[in-house]
């Protein structure tokens, strides 16, 4: 029988099938961070359980860490205690923890792939909804809650209902200045914030095949913003080249065996999907969100809708039907996050600077996704480009993507952001977030207002 990639990954991990279309699914890897696991470890203690396979877990602190100078320790006592608790829990249960001051720290969805912890064909979970990111490698990866993190540590399994399948095919080629972030926003705008609920999404087509691994990660990362927990791209030569030689990637005979298996991880030509969506990549313009849900998004040159149902989010954002976002003044710019904090994102942002300087009215942050990304960027001189142009160059962490560390925006502030959620208060109480690509954010930071990066690059 012809199978989709999702079905192949599913079938390979079924421990037990029940009669109700559910399976006890084996979970190959678990990534941990400081926010979603304190209560998971507590549950293990309450039930008197141990971690079944400590070597299948990897922990790092990212959400609550400060991204300014960390040499003096963590000023916020609550954040310091939370991070110390993760380190202590990992030590007690035998789980490897990547130290905050070490060379490998970073956002959990950046470090998994760069460590070679994330591999094609595996199942991977994390107590974080953006775990869909890892699907870029052809891994079945999805976010779970803290209770489920505990179950995974104790049993290496989860009961799961099989999802329906959706294929999103991007035909043609992206225009210059248009990025994977714009593909993601265009898709979310097409299906809506709950259009993917109940589905596992596979991205396909020429424009997806042409993407770097970083680009595929951006696309899969945003899948949850359409309501789907899982996004997938079939692994190919680009995937294998990215993985080979990574610190935790297989070597020697193991590599050869793995590679032979990974090459089978494609949807069969005659596989059937429950839903098919086709989007012409050529026709995608840079996208910017205008509301408080990621599906409230328009092309940069389009007028905002007149729609009574959008009155509340548009009032929050202080934008109006008939306006365009082009020219809207911003106060803050944020480049980073598990969506757009990788080396290619920083290169794309830096390429827009040219001789420009951040506008006097704008505060702009560049927050690399990991210590490795930071080191790579510094080796390429990107840090100097950013700093000379008036951007702040920070330490890795979730930063302004989630207002629970010391990077937060004041009420009413308007931010051009490469992050993933424009929810009310996501970057600070009353703050206004416009999601867009790294190049668009850099261009907005310099102009002082939202601009069409295609015109800047022309």
């Amino acid at each position, binding site marked *: 029988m012809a199978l989709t990639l999702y079905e192949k990954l599913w079938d390979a991990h079924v*421990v037990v099938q029940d009669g109700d279309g559910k399976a006890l699914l*084996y979970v190959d890897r678990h990534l941990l961070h400081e926010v979603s696991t304190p209560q998971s470890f507590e549950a293990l203690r309450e039930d008197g359980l141990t971690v079944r396979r400590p070597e299948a877990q990897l922990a790092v602190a990212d959400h609550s860490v400060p991204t300014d100078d960390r040499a003096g320790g963590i000023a916020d006592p609550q954040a310091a205690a939370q991070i110390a608790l993760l380190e202590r829990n990992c030590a007690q249960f035998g789980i490897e923890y990547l130290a905050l001051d070490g060379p490998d720290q970073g956002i959990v969805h950046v470090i998994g792939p760069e460590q070679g912890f994330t591999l094609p064909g595996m199942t991977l979970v994390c107590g974080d909804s953006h775990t869909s990111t890892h699907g870029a490698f052809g891994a079945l990866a999805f976010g779970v809650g803290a209770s489920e993190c505990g179950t995974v540590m104790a049993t290496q399994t989860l009961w799961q209902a099989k999802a329906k399948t959706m294929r999103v095919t991007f035909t043609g080629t992206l225009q210059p200045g248009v990025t994977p972030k714009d593909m993601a926003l265009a898709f979310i705008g097409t299906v809506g914030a709950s259009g993917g609920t109940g589905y596992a999404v596979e991205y396909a087509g020429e424009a997806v095949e042409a993407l770097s691994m970083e680009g595929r990660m951006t696309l899969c990362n945003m899948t949850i913003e359409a309501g789907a927990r899982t996004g997938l791209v079939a692994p190919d030569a680009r995937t294998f080249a990215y993985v080979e030689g990574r610190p935790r990637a297989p070597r020697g005979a193991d590599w050869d065996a793995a590679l032979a298996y990974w090459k089978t991880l494609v949807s069969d030509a005659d596989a059937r999907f429950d839903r098919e969506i086709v989007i012409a990549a050529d026709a995608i313009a840079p996208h910017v969100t205008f509301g408080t849900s990621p599906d409230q998004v328009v092309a940069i040159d389009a007028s905002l809708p007149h729609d009574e149902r959008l009155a509340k989010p548009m009032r929050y954002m202080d934008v109006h039907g008939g306006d365009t976002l082009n020219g809207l003044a911003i106060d803050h710019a944020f480049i980073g996050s598990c969506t757009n904090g990788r080396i290619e994102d920083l290169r794309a942002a830096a390429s827009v600077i040219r001789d420009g300087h951040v506008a006097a009215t704008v505060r702009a942050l560049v927050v690399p996704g990991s210590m490795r990304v930071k080191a790579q960027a510094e080796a390429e001189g990107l840090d100097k480009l950013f700093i000379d142009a008036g951007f702040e160059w920070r330490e890795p962490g979730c930063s302004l993507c989630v207002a629970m560390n010391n990077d937060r925006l004041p009420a009413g502030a308007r931010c051009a952001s490469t992050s993933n959620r424009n929810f009310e208060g996501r970057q600070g109480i009353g703050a206004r977030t416009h999601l867009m690509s790294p190049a668009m954010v850099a261009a907005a930071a310099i102009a002082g207002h939202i601009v069409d990066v295609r015109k800047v690059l022309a």
Partner: protein
Amino acid sequence: MKELTTVTGRAVSLPDADIDTDIIYPARFLLITEKKGLGAYAFYDRRSDPGFPFRENDDRPILIAGPNFGCGSSREQAPWAIGDMGIRVIIAESFGEIFYSNCFRNGMLPIRLNGQIVEALRLRAEAGDTITVDLASQLIIAQDLPALGFDIAEDRREALLKGWNDTTRILALHGDDISAFEATQRRTSPWLWQRN
């Protein structure tokens, strides 16, 4: 886990669409590492809104919510906080998937129903009527409405009715199955078992 069989009481109505888990439990409170007592922070930044539907010491155990309730972040603090406010049943047209799963882990029942039925229940909630949700018979009883059936996966229904602990139950029932799976995978996919 706390069992859930029948829940009877008045209901809170929160009809906005796309209430994400950041609204339910603002991120800055995620620095708290406990899971009890989080109701104090639920909907924290919405509390001064005109028409905010929850009250001090609310004793209404049912929430009638808008579509895509609990979308966004996987934070389990969202159901912990709502549960701490006394809510045991949430009825909506659709839910964020991770939130939906998280509810079951905490003795809470999320029910998906079509939009018209949710709207009818919202009117009953706003009228202050008592609503009964009976998990055993999978029926909702509300004044002036016919008994309403709802769907729920059988394993989840049973787990809620009996208050099972998912983790210890998997180990008790399937410990050997897991070991057998691992033995096979170690042979067929040895690269997943090497530590580099």
